[in-house]
């Protein structure tokens, strides 16, 4: 019976190719636009560390001078050296690390090659275990090595391939600015999207991972400057960032259970009150968003992308309404045919099923064409200068989702016309002919 409906549907669609083409095209445009924008939105608002994100927190304090109106206080998006070190050294979490981004000037090993800048993270030892960073060779440095300002470095897979042709380079030397650093670890490809740890630190939010990872204390001793530095009081000495009244470090802590998170929050409040008692701080406002919450608060996803997604789905809605109208017109035009079928014994259910099959064929065709439009749309996005452009690809999930969207929209569009067709009384239709 089902194949018979398909045959009937195909006949009916062929009878009016212009109308059929119009329905398929409209549906396909709506689906193409929706899937393109949804793919980009999903890509940008994804979870960078699905296994860990729920237990990673970003503590924030407010080191600025006293405020006349305390209700206007808001914790700062990054920390000064003193606060970051106090929190990291307190070791109240399973893992804790402070970090800042910089540009590392990598000097070539061979003469005749040009020096180049590599995106670098200056951080403390826990960075690697806390974020579950995968190593190909070697490992990170120890907390002791970091404190002792050891000249050690971890490099990315990409940099290792560029400099050492992918060989195990642990133990070899990398010259950064004027100092030799010993390579202790080489990462596997690692570039969480969004680059959650870079959000306020002056890096891009999406794209390639960093190339070089240096111990924070060593980098500060070598006077490497952070990409983003915001001073909240005048008169600081920018030559010594460990004392300047400036925020430039992001601190992340790993708190596996809810009770640990509550305890840490209490610790953070205590810390601030203790600092206020010491006269170092003046404001009590603190915050401790988890990873995804921090991504939302920092508006990592460009609002244009969200706007486009909403518009695309509005567009799809109009396309569906349009298809309902056209299907309705088509099916009423065939009242006589329906009357004949009903008179010959077809049940209401059979007529309903027949029209739903017709609608879903339009949906599938629209989905196929929509997939093509989505690929076209994503290709256009990859040509854009946006930092996430290279990542815009249709994955298997979205591929399947396209057809779900197509079928659901076409079936929704088909319900009303099919119902109208199935309740037509056969006798008047037969009489009219």
């Amino acid at each position, binding site marked *: 019976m089902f194949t018979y409906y398909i045959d009937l549907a195909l006949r009916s669609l062929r009878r009016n190719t212009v109308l059929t083409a119009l329905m398929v095209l409209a549906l396909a445009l709506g689906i193409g636009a929706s899937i393109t924008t949804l793919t980009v939105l999903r890509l940008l608002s994804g979870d960078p560390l699905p296994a860990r994100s729920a237990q990673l927190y970003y503590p924030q304090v407010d080191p600025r001078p006293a405020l006349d109106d305390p209700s206007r206080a808001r914790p700062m998006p990054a920390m000064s050296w003193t606060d970051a070190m106090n929190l990291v050294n307190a070791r109240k979490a399973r893992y804790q690390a402070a970090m800042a981004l910089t540009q590392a000037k990598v000097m070539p090993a061979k003469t005749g090659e040009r020096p180049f800048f590599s995106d670098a993270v200056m951080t403390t030892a826990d960075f690697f275990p806390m974020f579950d960073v995968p190593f190909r060779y070697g490992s990170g440095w120890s907390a002791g090595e970091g404190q002792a300002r050891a000249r050690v470095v971890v490099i990315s897979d990409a940099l290792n391939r560029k400099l050492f042709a992918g060989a195990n380079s642990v133990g070899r030397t990398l010259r950064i600015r004027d100092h030799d650093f010993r390579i202790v670890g080489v990462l596997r490809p690692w570039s969480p999207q969004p680059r959650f740890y870079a959000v306020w630190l002056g890096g891009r939010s999406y794209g390639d991972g960093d190339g070089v990872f240096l111990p924070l204390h060593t980098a500060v001793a070598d006077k490497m400057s952070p990409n983003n530095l915001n001073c909240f009081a005048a008169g600081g000495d920018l030559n010594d960032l460990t004392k300047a009244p400036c925020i430039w470090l992001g601190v992340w802590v790993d708190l596996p259970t809810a009770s640990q998170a509550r305890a840490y929050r209490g610790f953070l409040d205590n810390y601030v009150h203790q600092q206020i008692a010491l006269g170092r701080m003046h404001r009590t406002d603190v915050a401790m968003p988890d990873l995804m919450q921090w991504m939302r608060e920092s508006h990592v996803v460009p609002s*244009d992308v969200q706007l486009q997604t909403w518009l695309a789905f509005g567009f799809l809605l109009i396309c569906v309404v349009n298809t309902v109208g056209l299907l*309705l017109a088509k099916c009423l035009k065939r009242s006589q045919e329906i009357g004949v079928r009903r008179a010959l014994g077809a049940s209401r259910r059979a007529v309903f099923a027949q029209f739903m099959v017709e609608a879903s064929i339009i949906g599938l065709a629209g989905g196929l064409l929509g997939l093509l439009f989505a690929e076209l749309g994503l290709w256009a996005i990859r040509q854009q200068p946006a930092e996430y452009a290279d990542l815009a690809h249709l994955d298997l999930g979205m591929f399947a989702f396209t057809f779900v969207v197509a079928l659901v929209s076409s079936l929704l569009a088909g319900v009303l016309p099919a119902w109208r067709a199935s309740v037509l009384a056969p006798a008047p239709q037969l009489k009219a002919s």
Partner: protein
Amino acid sequence: MNLQVKPIFSALRHHKAGTLLIALQIALTLAIVCNALFIIQQRISLLTRPSGVDEAHLIRVMNGWVGASDKDVGPLMQSDLDTLRRLPGVVDAYATNATPLSGGGWATGMHSKPDGKGKRVQTAIYFSDAHTLDTLGLKLVAGRNFHASEVQGFLPNDTLQPPQIIVTRALADNLFSDGHAVGKVVYLGKKPSTIIGVVARLQVPWVASWASNWEGNSTLVPRQMLTNGTNYVIRVRDGQLQKVLHSAPAALLAADRMRVIPDDQGVVTFEQMRAKAYKSDRGMAILMGVICTVLLAITAAGIVGLTSFWVGQRRKQIGVRRALGATRHDILGYFLTENLLIGIAGVAIGGALAVGMNQWLMHAFEMQRLSWPWIAGGVVVLLLLGQAAVLAPALRASNVPPVVATRSV
């Protein structure tokens, strides 16, 4: 024309579903098209903001010295500027940390009292010398330019508190309501800076929305940033742009090979910088335009489809009316009026939807309030679109001959 409203209503009552669908489609289309057009207009007004500089005649060269420490940079920069200013086709040149449209630079708070006290105004800092006004083509509306003797070197970790500054009119108006800024004193840190001149307009380096509230607040400081990398801004004579684009980097490299001028974005015109700075805004405007066009086309096609069907279904009735004396004109008027009535219902709902959608966009995306002319414009466009779409089927209906009434059965 005699508006046959009553028979239209009774006919539409037999086509409730179709009528509702067309009205709904018109309403949704109006809501989206109004807001999309409004977004387009906002983006266009954004990307047509003047930067205040003579963009058509300006080139930026990014330069990095190799093997020079910050202390050596002063004389190197001076000799480069001499080289550039002597080039044929060049009007003037200066060295700076940032320019409008470059997207990177120095922003800070300017205060009416020392140590960050008193009134605070956000400003961009442009490192300048006595040639800056001439090079950028800035119009001095009050006060004077820097003297060459006031221009000093500035090492990266120095504290910025120059005794003289030039500000934009927007910044002056923000700081002093009386309109007289020249001679007044402001603070970037502890020490006072005297405003010696006011220029008409100079945009900050950032075009993004976070800087939009103070996009005209710029400060020129008589300092040359002594770091390994600098930007040279060159103003050329009419018609010399292409020539200087090649001769400037060539002359710099000929004077001293120990430098890096990046292949990518190293030498650009301000027109290229503008295109790059506003690329995403332009992209958004184009995308909204495409969406509007396609939406209107789909809605029109839907109206054509449903009306054609109605015409086909009512051939017999049309024939009877014609036989009873209705003119072709009457039939045409009937379908046009019918569409107009559905359209009016649609735009009434759509107008409300558009306002609701705008409210939500204002809340979620910090959009501005949709003004009535936009909705009115959208209403007119959709009603006209409906009339145009219905014209072909309506003409076909008016051509139904009266003899149809006598056929069949």
